């Protein structure tokens, strides 16, 4: 049986790792390559870097980051954040990243997913979806780092993204992000049962129990976590030990 993956996420801004709450109020949490190596050594199954730098130099820093991480880390890693074109994607993939995460650009131009998948394979294209609850209309897709509501239904968009060639869905609940109150299980489950590719639950991890729920109830294939690791509250070994205790099959190094 394929094991459930535990994926630390490093939000990178101007070359540093930061963590905020519901996409706001960012705090400095460490140097990316050093943190990445630490998590790799702790037994991370994969890593995700999301670059939230809002400047033109972003592509350059993402390429440097991918190249540096690839020298030290021998598990798959994804780079995302502002990847807007085939050229952006191929630059980080050629530098050593295994996958790119596409968010706003894929919503605005879904063909981009297929263009990258054509050259690098679907496994290299992750559709990152930021979803927010709306009391009237369910869960909507927000873009531009959670500032613009597209009005699109999150489940429908996930299915469209897979049809367009995405090999994986990184599903973040904006409502839950940074709250440590658990993943949005209903949302995770709705997307996970709707698509035939792996789903990474994101936003809200507060402990091993939350992750176990994302797997068992949310039917997620992987769980993303950030804050609880960056501030040294726990380690990946410790979390995995707890997950094994909760009956979740994970890779224990």
């Amino acid at each position: 049986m394929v094991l459930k993956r535990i994926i630390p996420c490093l939000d990178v801004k101007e070359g540093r790792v930061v963590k905020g709450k519901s996409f706001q109020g960012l705090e400095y949490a460490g140097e990316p390559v050093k943190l990445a190596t630490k998590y790799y050594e702790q037994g991370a199954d994969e890593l995700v870097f999301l670059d939230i730098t809002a400047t033109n130099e972003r592509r350059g820093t993402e390429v440097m980051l991918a190249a540096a991480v690839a020298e030290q880390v021998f598990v798959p890693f994804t780079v995302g954040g502002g990847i807007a074109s085939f050229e952006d994607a191929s630059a980080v993939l050629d530098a050593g990243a295994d996958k790119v995460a596409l968010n706003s650009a894929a919503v605005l131009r879904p063909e981009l997913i297929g263009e990258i998948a054509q050259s690098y394979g679907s496994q290299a294209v992750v559709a990152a979806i930021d979803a927010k609850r709306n009391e009237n209309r369910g869960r909507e897709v927000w873009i531009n780092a959670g500032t613009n509501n597209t009005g699109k239904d999150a489940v429908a968009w996930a299915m469209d993204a897979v049809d367009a060639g995405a090999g994986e869905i990184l599903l973040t609940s904006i409502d839950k992000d940074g709250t440590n109150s658990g993943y949005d299980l209903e949302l995770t489950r709705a997307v996970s049962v709707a698509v035939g590719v792996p789903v990474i639950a994101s936003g809200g991890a507060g402990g091993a129990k939350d992750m176990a729920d994302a797997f068992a109830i949310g039917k997620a294939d992987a769980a993303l976590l950030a804050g609880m690791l960056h501030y040294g509250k726990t380690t990946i070994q410790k979390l995995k030990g707890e997950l094994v205790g909760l009956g979740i099959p994970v890779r224990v190094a």
Partner: protein
Amino acid sequence: MKIAIVDYGAGNTGSVSRALSFIGAKTELVTDASGLENADAVVLPGVGSFSCARKLEPIRKGLLKAMEEKPFLGICLGLQLLFESSGEAKGRGLGIYQGEVERLKCKKVPHMGWNTVIMQEESRLLEGVESQPFYFCHSYAVKECPDAVAYCNEESERFVAAVEMGNLFAVQFHPEKSGPAGLEVLRNFVGVVRK
């Protein structure tokens, strides 16, 4: 000691060469037969579609010759290319083994993530890490191979995870992305080359 990594435009040559360098092996990206002749071993990596088989055509003869003479390691698509054909795309494999590569039938495809393998035979390549999970990422696989030493079970499907016969090695998973256990597989291969 120098390991040739066949660069035929099917991705991940960089990951494989970085992982081999990390464990102290010298590598060289090779695009033609002369590059293979000068190497002590050959790695055929691969991420992508079986359609890349056509890109192997120019180097096919040299590759088959090298496989008779020196240690060979196929990774992912590099394992699938040992067979004759694939349901994924047209193109001729190396035909070392008979049979077709088939699409996986499990619920979520690609089969992506860490999975354990079930050993069938003793393996020099997987020695010491037989019980460790490895990172898989593929949508197609081979059901049977006379030289399979390990299989992987996913849902009700069983497919070949590792092949080994003399100096011929191939794995469906990605040792270069399988953490310390994967690096150990590569070390075992380098150990065979050094002998």
